[in-house]
């Protein structure tokens, strides 16, 4: 005989889970009691939101399913932002929540909230388990659904009596999950793939537009092979950074609102856009009618609903990025010379490089460049949201997939620090940095407690401008510099870190940046760096909301 809680823990182990992030409470007591003896490592966070983000960071860094656990009601509700963040960026996590006993469901019982109802729009699927007998296969299905197809969060809600009830149960040795309503397509249609290759022969100015789907399907190698064999330039979204090494001659960096000028110009002039694992998000396309308006579009995505959602597509290919790219490479018969186009792009790159003022003041871009130089582009870089995120995206220079972790779709401030904790458990040998804003860091600053408790060696580099900088930037540019509620009073972050038993350093001078970063890297445990940066530095170039993406402002290069 086994309790539901035991079945759950065994199920997690069978799915290969080693670490989970959680916070206890009344209705999950039976589960915590089971954890007490188990080989699973449970990390006690200081707020459930952090548990969800940590599971998400773990998943992004490892490619495996991240797991978080919370009690019913307030605990479950605190997971919501984290689940929504994972949903928007297609990250596989399984969220476990306790629930009031089945006989009290719907009674407004103490700490009851309808978490399956609440998370319906932000999960790939969710379960309210009403019978202990169902638990075993629900756990299997949940992990299967989370990691297959277009990955995403799955929530399992467990009433207390389902966890405590004892039943006779053995996990079957091997059990294939089969769901008649869920059969993702992995292999692209070969006719369509041939059609795509034909378009490449007709094209003069092809461009690969690459997103997070290429990262999550582990297709970076295939992408490189494909791009190199046909000599097609590549631009990536925020989520796609790392899919191609930043210093690769075919790489144009990021496109979109804060993309490089040359990437945005290339999209605008391209006559064939090969979009893979992207969703034509408004932060990327700017004004939709003018986005790639001269181009035919090939769109590869595992989610058929993304194809044609925002933009008419000429060749739709439903399939997994890795499998489709492999197939495309295998089916290449003819090659075309795009040298004229490549030369044009090289000229743009030379004329419009990414630049920022170097006047002796402490600039955030410089800090990111220094960090990149020290880490040689390696390590795992997590960011918060706002200017800090964009400067990191623009200046770090990512070389490998899964080394850049950021909340793209939801843009969740407070994501970075807990996600960095999760990333550490996924890749314990890597240096993990959270590049933070002073605003964002204060959204989950309580996790200093967690990193201190477990000595999680996450390095926080706060680009401290004492502003909600990105919002301030919009106020400066579009609201007549009326800084309505965006100024933050100074905080002594080093003292805050010290209060948690964590070392820190404040940096005000550019000449101290490298030493400070080295000190952080060389410290065994966590470290907090408080960089007092130029307060009103902006992120440039920038496409104003609603403008075409080739109508960029700023960039210190006109």
């Amino acid at each position, binding site marked *: 005989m086994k309790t539901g809680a035991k079945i759950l823990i065994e199920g997690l182990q069978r799915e290969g889970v080693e670490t989970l992030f959680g916070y206890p409470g009344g209705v999950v007591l039976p589960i915590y009691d089971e954890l007490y003896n188990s080989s699973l490592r449970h990390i006690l966070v200081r707020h459930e939101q952090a548990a969800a983000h940590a599971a998400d960071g773990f998943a992004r860094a490892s490619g495996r399913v991240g797991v978080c656990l919370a009690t019913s009601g307030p605990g479950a509700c605190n997971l919501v932002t984290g689940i929504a963040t994972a949903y928007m960026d297609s990250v596989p996590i399984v969220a476990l929540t306790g629930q009031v006993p089945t006989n009290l469901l719907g009674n407004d019982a103490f700490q009851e909230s309808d978490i399956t109802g609440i998370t*319906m*729009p932000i999960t790939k*699927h969710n379960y*309210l388990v009403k019978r202990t007998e169902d638990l075993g296969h629900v756990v299997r299905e949940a992990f299967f659904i989370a990691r297959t197809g277009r990955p995403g969060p799955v929530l399992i809600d467990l009433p207390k009596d389902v966890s405590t009830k004892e039943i006779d149960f053995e996990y079957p040795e091997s059990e294939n999950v089969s*769901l*008649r*309503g869920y059969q993702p397509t992995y292999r692209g249609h070969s006719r369509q793939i041939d059609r795509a290759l034909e378009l490449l022969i007709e094209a003069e100015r092809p461009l690969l537009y690459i997103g997070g789907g290429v990262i999550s399907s582990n297709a970076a190698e295939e992408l490189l092979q494909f791009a190199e064999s046909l000599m097609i330039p590549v631009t990536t979204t925020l989520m796609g950074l790392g899919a191609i090494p930043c210093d690769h001659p075919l790489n144009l960096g990021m496109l979109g609102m804060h993309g490089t000028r040359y990437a945005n110009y290339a999209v605008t002039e391209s006559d064939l856009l090969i979009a893979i694992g992207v969703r034509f998000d408004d932060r990327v396309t700017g004004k939709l009618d003018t986005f790639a308006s001269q181009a035919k579009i090939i769109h590869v995505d595992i*989610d*058929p609903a993304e194809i044609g959602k925002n933009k008419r597509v000429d060749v739709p290919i439903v399939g997994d990025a890795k499998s489709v790219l492999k197939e495309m490479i295998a089916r290449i018969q003819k090659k075309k010379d795009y040298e004229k186009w490549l030369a044009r792009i090289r000229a743009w790159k030379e004329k419009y490089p990414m630049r920022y003022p170097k006047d002796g003041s402490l600039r955030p871009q410089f800090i990111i460049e220094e960090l990149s130089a020290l880490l040689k582009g390696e390590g795992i870089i997590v960011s918060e949201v706002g200017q800090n995120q964009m400067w990191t995206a623009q200046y770090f220079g990512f070389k490998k997939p899964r080394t850049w972790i950021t909340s793209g779709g939801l843009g969740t401030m407070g994501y970075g620090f807990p996600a960095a904790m999760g990333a550490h458990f996924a890749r314990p040998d890597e240096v993990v940095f959270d590049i933070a804003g002073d605003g964002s860091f204060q959204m989950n600053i309580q996790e200093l407690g967690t990193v201190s408790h477990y000595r999680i060696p996450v390095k926080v580099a706060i680009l401290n401008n004492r502003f909600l900088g990105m919002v301030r930037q919009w106020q400066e540019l579009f609201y007549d510099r009326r800084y309505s509620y965006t100024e933050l009073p100074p905080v002594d972050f080093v003292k805050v870190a010290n209060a948690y038993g964590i070392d820190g350093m404040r940096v005000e001078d550019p000449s101290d940046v490298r030493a400070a970063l080295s000190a952080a890297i060389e410290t065994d445990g966590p470290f907090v760096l408080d960089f007092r940066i130029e307060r009103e530095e902006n992120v440039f170039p920038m496409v104003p909301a609603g403008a075409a993406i080739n109508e960029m402002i700023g960039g210190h290069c006109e």
Partner: protein
Amino acid sequence: MKPHTLSVLVENKPGVLSRVTGLFSRRGFNIESLAVGVCEEPGMSRITIVCIGDDAQIEQVMKQLNKLIDVIKVSDLTENDRVERELALIKVNAEPGSSRAEIMQLASIFRAQIIDVGSRSVVLSVAGDTKKIDALEKLLRQYGVKELVRTGTIAILRGSKTVKSAK
């Protein structure tokens, strides 16, 4: 923009209807009518949804529905040869005398049945496609429709073709 009739085969599980309807409201699609019930396949239900949208919107609705794990198959019956029926119960003011006779006459033209007779009202039951029910309701308005209950359209393909799970 025209009405589309979607036939959606779903797992007969708790919450499936709210997953489906939630998706419509969340993505800003309007439902004109919705009818749900068990079907010939054990463990499945069939939902018939009539919604209005342009082709791109309907395509997006169908793709989004398909993404729901509990949705087994989605078919747009609009372009197919099909029969559609809806049932309506209509309570009409009918004072004894001439109006009651007129109502009974209308009922027989529309092949509606009088299923309840009260001292001052009657209840009609009418089945047919949406247009027919709309037409009858409009004619009955002059007498005063006290209450109208409609089931929403259900539809089925003509001939031997079926809407089934492919799996």
